[in-house]
């Protein structure tokens, strides 16, 4: 506490600890002794102004404190005028914000690093898409060109070998594209907006009409909520899950149903199918990138779908899990917080 002349009249143990002076050294001295040298000269005028028009001032501005040993540290100071019989005093509450500032700086630095590595990742993804695919086109192209030019000279075996070359080049291209898609979940993002999942469901099932008809499947839904998220990613999420439900089916006609329930502060969306199911011992691994449980002949694919799903759900602050047993169908559940703070 400081009087109208700037003299310290009261100081607590915290002030002693922060500034390194004892209370006896402080009392009676002007408050400028607690500041770094460079601020001392101008402060009395500011202090006088304050006393002319005293009002509560909340902490917020970053200021500097000066210790007895001459060192400086960052502080925040709140001021409250105190009217007494002996006149006007000002009570100053001083907060050491060194640690907070250090954390803020660390956070800023980490954010900057993250932004940089995100840009690098996007560049990497672009280079991967272009530079890795160009040689593939040469491999497949020249193999097919060879085949075309030498039709009458090649036997069945040779033609088959060329087909293998082309097939594998195409598969490699698919893998590269899938890897890109996976990397883009986090690197190419749109801001979150209110997204009506009923509409997204309708868009998805319209886009998948050929797949649904080919598999003679039925895709249905309950009423779905409006959630906060990235519409195109939620579209992809539903499409991958519904697509899996249609794809991994046994003899029965595939049925996929999407439902939702509110669970505290989050929505839980479930995509259930009547397909071949997954042994619980594989449940953890199915979300890994390029992880597959079937041969290309049984069910073709690269093993990217669920990895992308998991990444999308994580970006939305939710979790994804599976409940399934062989021959008993599968239910994929994912959560989306009702209020996602970004």
């Amino acid at each position, binding site marked *: 506490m400081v009087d109208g002349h700037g003299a310290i009249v009261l100081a607590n143990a915290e002030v002693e600890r922060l500034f390194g002076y004892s209370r006896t050294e402080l009392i009676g001295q002007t408050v400028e002794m607690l500041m770094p040298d460079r601020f001392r000269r101008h402060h009395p005028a500011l202090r006088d102004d304050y006393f002319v028009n005293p009002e509560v001032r909340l902490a917020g501005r970053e200021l500097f404190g000066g210790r007895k040993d001459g060192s400086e540290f960052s502080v925040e100071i709140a001021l409250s005028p105190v009217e007494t019989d002996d006149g006007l005093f000002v009570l100053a509450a001083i907060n050491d914000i060194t640690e907070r500032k250090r954390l803020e700086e660390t956070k800023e630095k980490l954010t900057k690093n993250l932004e940089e590595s995100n840009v690098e990742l996007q560049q990497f993804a672009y280079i991967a898409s272009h530079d890795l695919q*160009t040689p593939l086109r040469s491999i497949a*192209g020249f*193999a097919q060109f060879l085949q075309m030019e030498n039709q009458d000279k090649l036997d069945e075996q040779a033609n088959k070998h060329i087909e293998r070359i*082309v097939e594998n080049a195409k598969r490699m291209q698919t893998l590269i594209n899938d890897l890109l898609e996976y990397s883009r979940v986090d690197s190419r993002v749109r801001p979150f907006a209110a997204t009506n999942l009923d509409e997204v469901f309708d868009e998805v099932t319209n886009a998948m009409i050929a797949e649904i008809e080919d598999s003679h499947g039925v895709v249905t839904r309950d009423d779905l909520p409006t959630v906060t998220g990235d519409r195109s990613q939620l579209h992809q999420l539903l499409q991958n899950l519904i697509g899996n439900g249609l794809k991994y089916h046994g003899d029965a006609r595939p049925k996929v149903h999407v439902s939702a329930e509110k669970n505290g502060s989050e929505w839980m969306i479930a995509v259930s199918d009547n397909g071949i199911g997954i042994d619980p011992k594989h449940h953890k691994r199915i979300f890994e990138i390029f992880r597959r449980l079937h041969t290309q002949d049984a069910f073709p694919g690269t093993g990217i779908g669920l990895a992308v799903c998991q990444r999308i759900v994580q970006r939305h602050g939710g979790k994804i899990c599976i409940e399934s047993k062989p021959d008993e169908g599968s239910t994929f559940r994912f959560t989306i917080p009702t209020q996602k703070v970004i």
Partner: protein
Amino acid sequence: MANELRGSRHAEILLVEDNRDDVTLTREGFKQSSLMINLHHVEHGEACMAFLRKEGEYADAPTPDLILLDLNMPVMDGREVLAELVADENLKHLPVVVLTTSTDNQDVLKMYKLRCNAYATKPVDFNQFLHVIQGIADFWFTVVVLPPSND
């Protein structure tokens, strides 16, 4: 008068492409076309601009009827070429088809914003690639009316 190619003369195409294999495959693609085509080739954007402006070794180069432009090239890439083309009063009328590996949405959008006339990607499968080349040749030399030639 509009540029009437059918039977009157060869179509002149400028292929701007740094990858030799792609040049060979594209050349083969056009060979299989029934149209009479002269395929000229430069390896990067700077050479492309010199060709179009008939500078240096390209003093006698014809004005192409169509430019096939790759995107990612050394020295000067396809984006820079198109930006410079559309800013040049003498060259901006030349039809440009972007022919690239990139399926990147942002590339597609950017090139259309720069007013390319079409954007096509090169498929890995040679038969599909031939189909693309054939489609480009058919459309540009039998369907559309090209700008009149000054040559």
